[in-house]
């Protein structure tokens, strides 16, 4: 076995690293939030509170895994698995470094978008089969939010795809050798960032699970590891969005001196920290504000960005 795209070693290590990293983010997020909000955060379990994740995991695995008698069992059990599966599948097309990746697909970008759109079923089914009004409200919001922001997410990527001339994420990274796409595609980058937060329904766009309004939204009835899967799924989504931003707009693994994997890690970590800062800094918008902001502002802007990119590419040829 060796380091080449799609080898068994590659697949296993990417799977393990991604899941462990996502679980560690539970601790990272709480420490960083504590830092920005001028308090300590979890610092008791192990050095710097590093073992907090282990404690959390033990707790979540040993909790009673309860299915409410009024819930629809089929949908209730299916829902949390969907989010984990689709996000882990999305990682299969992400190129981490030369030779590190699971598959180089000529439909890579589209595959990620397809998986993102299937992820909507997780929150919808979770809320619907819980048979709880808060859960239902949460999943109604989630459905509208995810379907809408998927559109802008797709359109904002098209500029990058047009500049590269390929849907292959590895080729997109290689095309950025002369300069990162964030410069010519700055508007696309900003829209993708916003849509990414909305797709992974993190604060400030965590409207489907807004605690202060609707209990915990779509996962109100969930407990134990089923809740844990939604929870880790959200962090996996955060890692995925940060990796995608790195690949699409910031030249992926490319950078001087340090090895490629280190560069990828540094860039992706910066975005993860940025997303956590967003959570600490920005309050949640109202539901209708989010929708009208998307359709009336982001959609025209992303179309205009695509149009101008097209004109520039055509005139350059």
């Amino acid at each position: 076995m060796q380091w080449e795209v799609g080898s068994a070693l590659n697949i296993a290590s990417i799977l393990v690293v991604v899941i462990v990293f996502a679980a560690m983010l539970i601790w990272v997020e709480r420490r960083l939030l504590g830092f920005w909000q001028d308090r300590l955060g979890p610092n008791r379990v192990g050095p710097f509170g590093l073992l907090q994740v282990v404690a959390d995991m033990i707790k979540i695995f040993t909790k009673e895994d309860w299915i409410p008698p009024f819930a629809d069992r089929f949908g209730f059990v299916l829902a949390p698995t969907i989010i984990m599966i689709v996000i882990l599948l999305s990682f299969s097309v992400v190129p981490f470094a030369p030779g590190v990746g699971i598959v180089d697909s000529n439909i890579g970008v589209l595959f990620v978008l397809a998986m993102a759109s299937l992820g909507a079923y997780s929150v919808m089914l979770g809320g619907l089969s819980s048979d709880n009004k808060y859960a239902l409200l949460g999943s109604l919001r989630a459905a509208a939010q995810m379907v809408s922001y998927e559109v802008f997410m797709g359109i904002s990527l098209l500029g990058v795809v047009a500049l590269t001339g390929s849907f292959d994420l590895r080729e997109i990274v290689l095309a950025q050798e002369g300069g990162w796409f964030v410069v010519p595609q700055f508007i696309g980058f900003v829209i993708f960032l916003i849509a990414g937060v909305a797709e992974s329904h993190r604060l400030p766009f965590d409207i489907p699970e807004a605690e202060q309004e609707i209990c915990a939204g779509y996962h109100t009835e969930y407990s134990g590891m089923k809740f844990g899967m939604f929870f880790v799924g959200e962090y996996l989504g955060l890692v995925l969005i940060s990796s995608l931003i790195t690949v699409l707009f910031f030249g992926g693994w490319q950078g001087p001196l340090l090895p490629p994997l280190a560069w990828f890690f540094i860039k992706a970590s910066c975005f993860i920290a940025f997303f956590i800062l967003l959570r600490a800094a920005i309050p949640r918008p109202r539901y209708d504000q989010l929708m009208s902001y998307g359709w009336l502002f982001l959609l025209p802007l992303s179309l205009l960005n695509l149009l101008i990119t097209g004109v520039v590419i055509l005139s350059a040829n």
Partner: protein
Amino acid sequence: MTELFYSGALVAVIATLLVIVQTNVVHALIYLVLSLLAVAVVFFSLGAPFVAILEAIVYAGAIMVLFLFVVMMLNLGQRSRDQEKEWLPARTWFVPSVLALLLLIQLVASIPTAGLNIEEIGARAVSELLFGPYVLAVELASFLLLAGLVSAYHIAKR
């Protein structure tokens, strides 16, 4: 690719059958999504990755989400399940099953014995066709969609 085709086709057939016999609407929708994804796999195995992924994005990812969205609003409970059961007794199955069996026999008889010549058609080839010889059809389809959009907006406004 042949194994991929047959497994995808098998899942599609079974999932579609389950869509019909389910009395719970949400379960039926989940099986319909599964069936569409299986059809995407079939497209993929026949050398059309672009169509396959569009099938997953548009049908499984967008249209079925809207179906589920509507079902959420309807609040269908035990009553609709009973109604469904009433509508689908055993004797209704007889004629459709016979007809489907006849079709299946014809289909099996007409399967070409020689292997299919599969040639992969990527995104670029599809786009060249869409914006080349078929550009008029694409424009007409977009007119139709625009008309649907405007009328939906009009109805929602009132």
